């Protein structure tokens, strides 16, 4: 069996499970974000009175933080009342940040556990060896009532990453390249595991970016076998009790792919689809109205570090605006401590509240028709960041910062070649 199957079997109370089988699993963490007051309504409509276990439920106020409309404020208010009534202590209010980052910051993501959040990018937690998957409001309400949820055991695809990363190339470029190659529906209903020597070069932040974007392949979940990088991270975050499962040697993957990253340069996903990917040089010179650094994909300390390096002592190009959205309060605090935020603000960037901000087109940095935004986020669908005709180019944080500096899409590799960055 695969490690994922062993994990699922354990949670379903079975000795074995196999791909295609429908199972009912106990859930270790059920997260609800503020877009889904629907969940609480459905809970009531299902006859729910007391939640299955108030210690396993986390509420995240991230998409609307802080509220931009009365309706959003009303939803938050009702959520707070629900949390109080149910004794849910883990309420991550508007000062905290994006759910997936908080799961890491607070040490809530554990290997060997099932994490279900009302957010499609819950695949992120594969970076910790957890089974993370996104659901809608009614599924989550089912968990609130019963503590369980049905799953179809997924087939598993393995992606082996080999070669040597070029300077100025990051996990975001690697995953964009893979999505461009495999296309947006390649992984529907399937799990995607990453392995190979390149993982040693990827810290938790990069691994989270990798796993986060498997959602854009349609994947149900993702997985990285926990190693020393994982366990060191967990230890630092006070996590000591967890189970690491291992895949049997004779397990047969549905597909076994290998990518040599040596020739992958910085990548761009052009409008209006995440799988519309090409080398950044193809778009070089395109004027950028907005450079957006943030989200659960590209808003971590490491991302701000590289942006600060690129913009240190310089100015964001006249005619371009740069928006900074740290993924969480803790990310913001660390970035202040290391002076990344100060450097970027001095360069002319605008700081927004940690959270989802403009990533899904609700507030704090929307774009107008025909405007171009280069973004470290994960989606470039029509209207994702405001106007339906706004054009979003997805890229790595380094490419975002470089575009902010030059006012046009530019390969960050230039920077490294000239020795301006190491």
């Amino acid at each position: 069996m695969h490690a994922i199957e062993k994990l699922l079997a354990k949670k379903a109370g079975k000795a074995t499970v196999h791909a295609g089988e429908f199972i009912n699993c106990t859930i270790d963490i059920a997260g609800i974000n503020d877009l889904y007051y629907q969940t609480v309504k459905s809970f009531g409509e299902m006859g729910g009175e007391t939640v299955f276990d108030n210690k396993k439920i986390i509420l995240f106020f991230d998409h609307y933080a802080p509220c931009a409309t009365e309706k959003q404020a009303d939803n938050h208010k009702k959520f707070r009342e629900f949390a109080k009534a149910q004794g849910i202590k883990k309420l991550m209010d508007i000062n905290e940040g994006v759910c997936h980052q908080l799961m890491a910051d607070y040490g809530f993501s554990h290997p060997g556990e099932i994490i279900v959040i009302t957010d499609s990018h819950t695949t992120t937690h594969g970076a910790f060896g957890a089974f993370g998957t996104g659901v809608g409001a009614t599924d989550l309400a089912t968990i609130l009532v019963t503590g369980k949820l049905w799953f179809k055991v997924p087939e598993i695809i393995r992606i082996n990453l080999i070669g040597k990363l070029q300077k100025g190339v990051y996990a975001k470029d690697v995953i964009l390249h893979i999505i461009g190659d495999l296309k947006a529906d390649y992984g529907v209903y399937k799990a995607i595991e990453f392995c190979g020597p390149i993982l040693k070069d990827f810290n938790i932040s990069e691994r989270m970016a990798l796993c986060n974007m498997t959602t854009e392949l349609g994947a149900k979940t993702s997985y990285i076998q926990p190693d020393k990088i994982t366990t060191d991270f967990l230890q630092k975050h006070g996590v000591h009790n967890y189970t690491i499962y291992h895949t049997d040697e004779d397990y047969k993957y549905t597909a076994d792919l290998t990518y040599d990253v040596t020739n992958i340069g910085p990548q761009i996903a052009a409008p209006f689809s995440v799988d519309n990917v090409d080398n950044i040089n193809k778009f070089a010179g395109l004027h950028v109205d907005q450079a957006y650094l943030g989200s659960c994909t590209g808003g971590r300390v490491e991302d701000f570090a590289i942006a600060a390096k690129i913009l240190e002592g310089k100015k964001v190009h006249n005619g371009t605006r740069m928006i900074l959205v740290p993924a969480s309060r803790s990310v913001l605090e660390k970035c202040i401590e290391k002076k990344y935020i100060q450097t970027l603000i001095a360069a002319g960037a605008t700081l927004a509240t940690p959270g989802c901000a403009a990533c899904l087109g609700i507030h704090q940095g929307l774009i107008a028709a025909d405007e171009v935004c280069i973004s470290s986020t994960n989606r470039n669908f029509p209207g994702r960041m405001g106007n339906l005709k706004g054009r979003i180019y997805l890229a790595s944080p380094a490419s975002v910062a470089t575009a902010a500096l030059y006012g046009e899409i530019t390969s960050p590799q230039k920077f490294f070649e000239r020795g301006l960055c190491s």
Partner: protein
Amino acid sequence: MKKIVQGTAFVFGNNIDTDQIYPGKFVELTEIADIKKHAMSGSEIPDLVDKFKPGDIIVGGKNFGCGSSREHAAITLKGIGTSAILAESFARIFFRNAINLGLPAITCKGIHALINSGDQISINFTSGEIKNLNTGKIAYAEPMNDYIMNILQSGGIKAMILKMQKEKKTLQTK
């Protein structure tokens, strides 16, 4: 759940994402009456709600409903009275959401090429037969798993769980 439905088809392309089905800015709405006003408003048929009649059918290509987990995407289509969604394939969360709401999401390979917007379509949920009444062409849906069929026949997962809860209570009081 009705055995046979018939309605006018509205055809969309591949990778129709949830932002097209239901733009993010309307996710704050919580009442079906409000949610249904914005069905497909981010798509190439932004005025679908004016043209759509209850019982009509949505047809998609590959990966219909990809993107966010917002259940609003399924709620809005159910809200306008969609009797079924036919597609080459569905994105996972959208599929779950639709089924949970009791909205049949039917996978049928090759369906996209068989139907044009405006065609009259009939679907027999028992036999899986999908018929284009304008062209007479027939296709067969991929059979549904029992687990999923059970949810649909119960009228969605809410009704199913509510029933389970009531049964548990009566057992406890006995």
